[in-house]
């Protein structure tokens, strides 16, 4: 055989995902595939997303059918680079499926989040990946947690990737101190110390973007680069209805419309996603923590943290990513930044642009952190 056979398999998006449903094939058999071509839509109980190819070739076989629910790692289809006989393809598929069945029985358990002590506070963290590359630390936004990076974390390779819960969030301690940018940035630095990370690429979303930028400005010796995704701290406006609604909503049907405003496509907000946020909000101390943070960051419905005048002076590389349909923080805050800051805009994507345009954002992240 002169060609290369690439299996296309069920991805693992997030901790809870053990299986996914093949909602639709978006590439035809025989179609030319490039890296980034959308091949199938995968639906999980949490979210629906397009699976993009990482390889080039021809989609020779659709092995799985639309509507089928399959475990993570199951063969969906086969992309071939070059020439491969039909019989060879049949043998490959049969062998792959036999191996996958055997592997499923002896599979190592997936990485689990753990709680570590950092600066005297419990911090929940999920560490994936390995390699010699400078670690990446992912910092979620207001009301979020490490699960927000479900599409991002697996895509960053060649290095450890740490997704952490900020104070008051997820499984971290609910004592937020003053709840201001100094408190949150200090917590991230304490985590870097506790995890033995001398220097990290920081990726921050929304409020976490402001935290990442403040560290890039004030602790440049600890920061290799900062990627700011729909960050706070670059303008005064914020959708205060979202912040107040998120804190105040106690019931599913009250919370759901607020979560829908995070996405350009509200269909992405599933029953499970709402339930996960409700489970977080029910924890003792969360409401007080969120109110403290919101009071420090967004008093009177305006942003108190302003780093816009300082961003040009950053001593480390900084990039900005924004969805133009962001309903929480206006994408216009990315306008007029110093020319040294690359800005990437995604048309029609919302505040959760790293989820709604996951593959493109992942490519930007990978190329920005490079091989270092």
């Amino acid at each position, binding site marked *: 055989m002169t060609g290369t056979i690439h299996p296309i398999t069920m991805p693992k998006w997030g901790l809870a995902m053990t299986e996914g449903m093949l909602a639709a094939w978006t590439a035809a058999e025989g179609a030319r595939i490039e890296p980034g071509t959308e091949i199938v839509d995968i639906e999980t109980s949490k979210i629906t997303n397009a699976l993009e190819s990482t390889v080039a070739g021809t989609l020779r076989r659709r092995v799985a059918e639309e509507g089928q629910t399959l475990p993570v790692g199951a063969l969906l289809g086969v992309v071939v680079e070059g020439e491969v006989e039909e019989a060879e393809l049949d043998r490959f598929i049969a062998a792959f499926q036999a191996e996958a069945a055997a592997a499923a029985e002896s599979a190592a358990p997936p990485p689990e*989040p753990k709680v570590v002590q950092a600066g005297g506070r419990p911090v929940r963290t999920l560490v994936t990946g390995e390699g010699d590359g400078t670690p990446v630390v992912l910092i979620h936004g207001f009301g979020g947690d490490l699960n927000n990076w479900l599409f991002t974390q697996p895509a960053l390779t060649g290095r450890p990737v740490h997704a952490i819960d900020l104070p008051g969030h997820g*499984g971290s301690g*609910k004592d937020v101190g003053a709840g201001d940018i100094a408190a949150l940035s200090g917590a991230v630095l304490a985590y870097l110390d506790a995890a033995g990370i001398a220097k990290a690429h920081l990726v921050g979303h929304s409020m976490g973007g402001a935290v990442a930028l403040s560290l890039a400005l004030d602790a440049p010796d600890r920061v290799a680069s900062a990627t700011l995704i729909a960050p706070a701290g670059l303008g005064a406006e914020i959708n205060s209805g979202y912040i107040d609604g998120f804190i105040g909503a*106690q*019931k*599913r*049907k009250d919370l759901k419309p607020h979560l829908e405003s995070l996405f350009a496509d509200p269909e992405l907000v599933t*029953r499970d996603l709402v*339930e996960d946020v409700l*489970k977080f909000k*029910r*924890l*003792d*101390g969360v409401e007080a923590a969120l109110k403290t943070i919101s009071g420090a960051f967004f008093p009177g419905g305006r942003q108190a943290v302003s780093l816009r005048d300082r961003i040009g002076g950053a001593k480390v590389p900084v990039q900005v990513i924004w969805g133009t349909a962001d309903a929480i923080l206006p994408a216009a805050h990315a306008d007029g930044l110093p020319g040294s800051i690359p800005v990437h805009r995604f048309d029609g994507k919302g505040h959760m642009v790293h989820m709604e345009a996951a593959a493109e954002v992942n490519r930007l992240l990978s190329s920005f952190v490079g091989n270092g």
Partner: protein
Amino acid sequence: MSRKSFRQAVNEALAQEMRRDPRVILMGEDVSGGSGSPGEQDAWGGPLGVTKGLYKEFGPTRVLDTPITESAFIGAAAGAAASGLRPVAELMFVDFMGVCFDQIFNQAAKFRYMFGGKAVTPLTIRTMYGAGFRAAAQHSQCLYPVFTHIPGLKCVIPSSPYEAKGLLIQAIRDDDPVIFFEHKVLYDMEEEVPDEPYTIPFGEANLVREGEDVTIVAIGRMVQMAKAAAEALAKEGVDCTIIDPRTTSPLDMDTILESVEETGRLVVVDEASPRCNMATDISAQVADQAFGALKAPIKMVSPPHVPVPFAAGLEDLYIPNADKVAAAVRTVMGAPDRREAAE
């Protein structure tokens, strides 16, 4: 977050609330280990081990073994609640309610109203219920409809470990008497339960599953039966919504009505005896308030109107199961009921 059984979830809720609030005490038959037992090595923590370890941590002044006199210790708990403590009393099996019912329905339930709103009664009564434990007619009933009937009582029926911990902490912090039902068969069920304390508000149903064809309302252990039925039905192309009311008093009728308005079909699954149970109550309210939305008659899935049989085979036949739920769904979907057709 870690996997915990229903039993561990209840135990953790009790321990965390006792640490948080010194007014929280436990009392009941064998909750520590039996009156006169020499020490904690004898403390097996109730007949099914739910309160194990609490005597050791909190000692005899906060974990009180009582005589087998429900009228006395439930009454004492109501009085303690009215005078400043937050007791969690254990009525071992709800089937014993007859012994102490005056203390519950005509005393604890009424204090707030008889004293012009000046009295609060932060009493939680934990109690075991349900069939499937081979415990015969006197230890297997689902008597929550009786308590639901009494204004002034709150009635909580958790369906899983996560639900149990959050609802029990809410019950202990609530200022009204709460009857908290624990299904014996669920004690070993496991799922992810946060280590931190949390509360689930009363009167807010859980949307267990979303589907557009039919609404299944299921209570307590029956949520498991409904989920199994829904998975089987999904393979037939029938998409079920499952609603777990969590609390029968207060009852979240809004969520049920909104769902029926979308699906047009309702099946209610209730393990309680079929006359005047939650299935009849919910069905009547839907018929009263959303009749125009219904595309098919409501179906109720409940046991037959007989005492729970002791014979294992008969007990299994008595309890509503996934097949019976699925058959009811097929009926409201317009498919012939295969069991009826076979007769």
